[in-house]
């Protein structure tokens, strides 16, 4: 072989090796992920914040889980489930050979122990700050000690053999099984909870406070990661659960996850740029360009699961007139606002729930920007132009669905003024006045606000807004209420989808507000990150992540 040939072979081998290194994932390794704050507690049943759920999502599993990057559910600790004809009895067939991190078996008895734990919560645990999601889904406890609680949805749980759990409800409820994907309803080891005092708590200076060690040092689930250490203000360390029942899936995934709190947005991005992190959540819109411009980094999109909207208060004149509400809808230049202020990270919303959720309807009435139509509707309502209208916006806040409220407001006000309105601008600090005034219905005719979803069910959007009288919107509509009640009580998803589609059509006909944006929050990460699929709710699965070569 000539010298040139040897050189060629060496060169090709080197190139192949280099490609191999660049392309292959390193086995194991440590993933450093930054959120905005510490978790509150490590017991998911007593928290309601995203940072706590993020940690819980790695340690615990529920009977069901959300599909990666989607809002519909998949089996998790329950292999399958059926509902009785009356919709009150749910039978869950459980995975076998699953163990909690403390070595105790996961079975139907453990499922019932968890349900009964929530149902029997008393004293401090009935505080809304402790069991917000239990109260939102199950309404009440075995013995309600707070006047705002209602009759519980849950009735009982029975273990039939080792791997069948039968849960009985007091009435039909569709969102029940969807809501079980919330980390708040994850399965926890009954033995560990008893051993480390998970059910001990008190109200100290008016605040719920667990007095046992469980919620701080011993969270025990069945998930792919086990809790190792929590240094408040600095890090939560999770290590791979080598006994995990589905371990073969994650052979190349990271074997340690460190979740650190960095509250300042800029500091989080800079730490990512400086290689102190692998993934930074909650990227501010102005930082997206910085991450995109860095050759080592990339931006992940969290699927849209929120809605920004302008409420139209129907209890006030002149917006108590449907013609005026329609004029408002045609007078809001939503497409321009989304184009100008969302940096390509949002789509125009046409209804009050994101398109990814079942029940979203293609054919709701749409209100394209049309100043002339708006003016003619106002004249039809017998009003002389310009029509005065009070429009409120919040200050001192950015939300995932509303990164710059003031500019959104200014653009909307300009387009309304083109459409026959005279806008009377009012602003208030988000904390504490704005939200209070809007929710009490004491703010303007029009108000900028929005919502981020908690779990994959339309009830979390439409039910929250419109199922009962809501002063924010100031109207009663029997048809909409009836549709939402029926949808809540239906257990067949296809039927529920149809009911919600009908509700969406009715809502957009009635126009209690004008939805204008569904945004895709951004996450910054190193390019070498693989198998990271952002979750719609923010509770990302970090355990499948692989670290590729640099």
């Amino acid at each position: 072989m000539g010298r040139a040939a040897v050189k060629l072979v060496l060169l090709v081998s080197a190139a192949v090796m280099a490609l191999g290194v660049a392309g292959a994932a390193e086995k194991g390794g440590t993933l450093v992920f930054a959120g905005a704050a510490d978790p509150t507690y490590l017991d998911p049943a007593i928290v309601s914040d995203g940072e706590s759920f993020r940690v819980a999502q790695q340690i615990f599993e529920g009977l069901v889980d959300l599909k990666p990057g989607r809002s519909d559910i998949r089996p998790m600790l329950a292999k399958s489930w059926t509902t009785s004809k009356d919709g009150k009895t749910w039978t869950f067939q459980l995975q076998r050979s699953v163990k909690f991190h403390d070595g105790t078996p996961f079975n139907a008895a453990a499922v019932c122990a968890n349900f009964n734990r929530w149902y029997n919560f008393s004293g401090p645990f009935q505080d809304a700050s402790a069991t917000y999601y239990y109260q939102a889904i199950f309404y009440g406890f075995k013995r309600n000690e707070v006047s705002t609680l209602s009759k519980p949805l849950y009735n009982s749980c029975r273990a039939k053999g080792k791997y069948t759990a039968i849960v009985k409800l007091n009435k039909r409820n569709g969102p029940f099984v969807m809501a079980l994907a919330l980390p708040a309803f994850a399965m926890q080891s009954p033995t560990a909870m008893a051993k480390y005092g998970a059910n001990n708590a008190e109200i100290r200076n008016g605040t719920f406070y667990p007095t046992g060690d469980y919620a701080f040092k011993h969270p025990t689930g069945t998930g792919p990661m086990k809790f190792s250490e929590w240094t408040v203000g600095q890090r939560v360390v999770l290590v791979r659960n080598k006994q995990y029942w589905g371990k073969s899936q994650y052979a190349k995934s990271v074997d340690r996850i460190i979740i650190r709190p960095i509250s300042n947005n800029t500091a989080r991005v800079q730490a990512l740029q400086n290689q102190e992190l692998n993934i930074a959540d909650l990227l501010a819109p102005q930082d997206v360009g910085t991450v995109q411009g860095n050759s080592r980094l990339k931006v992940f999109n969290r699927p849209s699961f929120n809605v920004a909207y302008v409420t139209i208060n129907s209890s006030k004149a002149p917006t108590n007139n449907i013609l005026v509400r329609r004029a408002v809808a045609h007078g809001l230049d939503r497409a321009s606002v989304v184009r100008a202020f969302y940096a390509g990270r949002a789509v125009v919303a046409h209804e009050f729930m994101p398109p990814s959720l079942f029940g979203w309807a293609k054919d709701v009435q749409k209100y394209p920007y049309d100043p002339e139509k708006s003016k003619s509707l106002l004249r039809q309502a017998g009003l002389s132009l310009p029509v005065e209208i009070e429009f409120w916006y919040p200050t001192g806040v950015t939300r995932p669905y509303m990164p710059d409220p003031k500019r959104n407001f200014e653009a909307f006000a300009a387009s309304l003024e083109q459409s026959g309105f005279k806008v009377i601008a009012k602003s208030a600090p988000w904390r504490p006045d704005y939200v209070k005034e809007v929710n009490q219905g004491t703010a303007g005719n029009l108000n900028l606000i929005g919502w981020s979803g908690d779990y994959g069910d339309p009830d979390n959007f439409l039910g929250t807004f419109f199922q009962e009288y809501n002063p924010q919107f100031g109207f009663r509509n029997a048809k909409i209420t009836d549709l939402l009640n029926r949808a809540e009580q239906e257990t067949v998803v296809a039927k529920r989808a149809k009911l919600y589609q009908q509700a969406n059509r009715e809502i957009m006909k009635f126009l209690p507000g004008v939805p204008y944006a569904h945004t895709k929050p951004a996450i910054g990460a190193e390019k070498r990150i693989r198998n990271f699929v952002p979750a719609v709710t923010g509770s990302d699965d970090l355990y499948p992540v692989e670290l590729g070569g640099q």
Partner: protein
Amino acid sequence: MLRYVVRRLLLLVPILLGVSVLVFFWIRLLPGSPAESLLGERATPELVAAYRERYGLDEPIYEQYAKYLRSITDFDFGVSVATHRQVTDEIKDRFPATVELAVAAMLFATLIGIPLGFVAAKKYGSFIDHASLFVSLIGISIPIFFLAIILKYVFAVRLGWLPSVGRIDVTIEAEHPTNFYVLDAIITRDWATLWDVIKHLILPAIALGSIPLAILARITRASVLDVQNEDYVRTARAKGLAPMTVDRRHVLRNAMLPISTILGLQVGLLLSGAVLTETVFAWPGMGSWLRDAIFNRDYPVLQGGILFLAFVFVMVNLIVDISYAFINPRIRYS
């Protein structure tokens, strides 16, 4: 001396009582309550009312204050509304971080500020003197958060020489028996961790130390200029003592009195939590904690945290006053 110390310690009681009154009423003058702050969009009128009832915010304010006083006499500062952790536990975790940063910042300020001021005075009117004036002016005029951002951008983000956030590389497994990381690394003889902790301290310490540095340089310069024209200094020179000896024994020692006063005040201020620096560098100390507490209207944290810092401030100043006696034997406390 003992009587003086006891009297100063007894004075702590009215001071802390005054601070507790001020803090208690000041935070209640801020608009809003924890309910609206924490619930956000979910703050329905019913939930807000339930929160107010639970926190006792619907009780008369004097009753709330009386309750608060009773609890702090038991050293119970309550539980944070936002994090749900005990305020005393949070202080235990966070105060060492603030102390470490304050000490590093003061070391930086002292080691550069005092020599700079001394040299400027000795070379009065020279280029060095003007340069020190310039450095001092910059140190005092640049907003601390701006300097912090610039330092971070240049030395962390652009050059990648130093870390940009936190006290330690989070992937390091190290023991922290005292929570003072420098000390911990030395105790456990973990030199790699020590180096990492020092690297994390450099940028925030420079940012935080810039103002004390400028002040110390100016005070040292002025003080040395005063002292070096005193009769006893001229006499010492006339006796033929070496210039170094005159400077060390007569000039510096006498010039140190006003410097130590400033030093004490600055240490007290730095320990009170460097809100901006801690926020920019995501430093898990008292400053960033109190900042978040203001945003969250976290009454127990603000009340407990500020009272604790007032105590620290008074104690540091007491220690400085006592240290005068050692620096200058002419001072006698009674």
